[in-house]
């Protein structure tokens, strides 16, 4: 069952009609509606293409949060073999909002770490909607450290609304955990590549995305604050999220222009949720390519390159 976003309503209508026609045809053998149904399909396909050709930033934010979009777990299942989850921060708990472990990508051992939002009510609660607590970042630090000591490249998949704003999280040092995770990203002497597959929410995302190479799916977003949060602070009205999304420049296209990300990965027409397998495969191909390009670099080079990349960031603004 396809779930539709608000701006996809006209599309839902057409696809619904085609579906109805086919159902009617199945019920009575005499009716031949296939021609009409095919015409509707064509119309729907065209509309889908038009809708997604030029998504506004706010629509992109909605697509990035689409419940049907493939999540970290889906990527791990399809792209990696021998995935061996590793758990816990050795201090307090295992945070299910961040998953990770050793796995092979086309035979090559890597450490894969990512935010997981969950796909149904139960798993969403268990995963805390992808909002990690300090334990999550400390687990990520531990896994990065392990990878570093054994020369295993690290792949991170970013998809989080942000770090969890909770009482316990604050008491256990949410900010320190995020700061240390960013620091660890900058310190490891193995290739670190990151893909923003959905939402790159603020510090919670940076903690995993301070990488040698950062790629973004075409309709994902990456921002210092959510459009709603920004609207309620600067416009004093959370309903101004369209304007805020516009102003924040949170789309992959703008971030690429700003030099914050290195690559944009094209999504299937209508977004990753319409053809999950194809989207996952293109992310896989991109990760492999990014890792291959870094494989010639030694420890010091990798660290130096990563630091330099971030030090130089922001040198150019958007053209007027």
């Amino acid at each position, binding site marked *: 069952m396809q779930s539709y976003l608000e701006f996809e309503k006209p599309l839902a209508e057409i696809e619904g009609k085609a579906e109805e026609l086919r159902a009617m045809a199945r019920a009575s053998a005499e009716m031949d509606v296939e021609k009409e149904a095919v015409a509707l399909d064509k119309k729907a396909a065209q509309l889908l293409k038009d809708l997604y050709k030029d998504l506004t930033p706010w629509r992109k934010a909605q697509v990035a949060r689409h419940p049907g979009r493939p999540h970290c777990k889906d990527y791990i299942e399809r792209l990696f073999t021998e995935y061996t989850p590793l758990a816990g921060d050795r201090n307090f708990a295992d945070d299910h909002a961040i998953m990770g472990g050793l796995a092979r990508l086309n035979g090559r051992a890597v450490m894969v770490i990512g935010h997981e939002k969950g796909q149904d009510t139960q798993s969403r609660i268990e995963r805390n909607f992808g909002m990690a607590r300090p334990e999550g970042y400390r687990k990520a630090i531990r896994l990065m450290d392990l990878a570093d000591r054994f020369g295993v490249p690290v792949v991170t998949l970013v998809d989080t609304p942000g*770090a*969890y704003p*909770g*009482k316990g999280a604050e008491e256990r040092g949410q900010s320190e955990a995020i700061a240390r995770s960013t620091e660890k990203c900058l*310190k490891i002497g193995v290739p670190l590549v990151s893909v923003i597959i959905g939402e790159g929410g603020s*510090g919670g995302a940076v903690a995993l995305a301070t990488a040698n190479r950062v790629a973004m799916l075409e309709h994902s977003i990456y921002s*210092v604050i959510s459009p709603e949060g920004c609207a309620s602070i600067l416009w004093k009205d959370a309903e101004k999220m369209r304007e*805020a999304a516009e102003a924040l420049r949170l789309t992959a296209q703008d971030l690429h222009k700003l030099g914050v990300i290195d690559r944009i990965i094209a999504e299937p027409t209508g977004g990753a949720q319409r053809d999950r397998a194809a989207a996952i495969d293109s992310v896989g191909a991109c990760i492999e390519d990014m890792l291959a390009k870094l494989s010639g670099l030694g420890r010091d080079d990798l660290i130096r390159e990563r630091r330099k990349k971030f030090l130089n960031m922001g040198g150019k603004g958007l053209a007027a």
Partner: protein
Amino acid sequence: MNWISNYVRPKINSLFSRREVPENLWTKCPECGTMLFHRELADNLNVCTNCDHHMQLVPRDRFTALFDNGVFVEVEVPLPTADPLHFRDQKKYPERLKAAQKQTGEKEAMLVAEGEIGRTPIVAAAQDFSFMAGSMGMYVGNAIIAAAERAVELKRPLILFSAAGGARMQEGILSLMQMPRTTVAVEMLRDAGLPYIVVLTHPTTGGVTASYAMLGDVHIAEPNALICFAGPRVIEQTIREKLPEGFQRAEYLLDHGMLDRVTHRRDMKLELVTITRMLMGLPPAVMGDLPPPDLPAEEPEPTPEPKAAE
């Protein structure tokens, strides 16, 4: 040629602006409500003389009090691209910047300086909460990098006074990128084996806490400073319950292991001198050499103020 022919009509401006002066002479302590005379307050480093509430202290005043004889040299900070996103909310970002510059008389939200404290050479950086809530954008990132580079160049410790509402939204993703950028600056100090001491002042929140403010070798906070990642209001909205008294305040963080010390502003300088000298392998400071600390006498003075009936 007499006073009648030379008479200058007073300008409207001067009539109105003069009216503000008496207001500025007195400050009301936001904590206990005591009216404080401005000179007395300034002499006490903006700490309430009645309840010890630490009010904000702008970087220039802080440095004047911190460095020996108030002497320091500003470290130049490379200017970033102005308004990189062409950001506009209800106002244009450059307009907001200009207003802040006019109001504070400062270029941006961070001041970097080098000088001596208790004859100990240091580099210091201080964030200015009065400048757009001290928010961290490209300039603040550049300032911290410049401070770290200067400290490495001079082989001096870096002391950083943090105060910020978080990242500067008007610089969007580029403000977020200051988290890794400033972390690289901290790494430079680590690589050079130089101490990096963070003094967290009220308030230090958001992306600032989640990067350079929590990566110090030593964390000292001013009393009752709010230090957090997510602010209390956001948390209350998320978990829908009232937060305990003192939550996310300096003393609370000390209890939860996030800080080394909570130190009164009047003792801060001496403490920084003591710590940096030990970490830098220097002999103890010769106290007679220091400008006299304006500490109150050790003996508990009889407190004249009437105690509220309990």
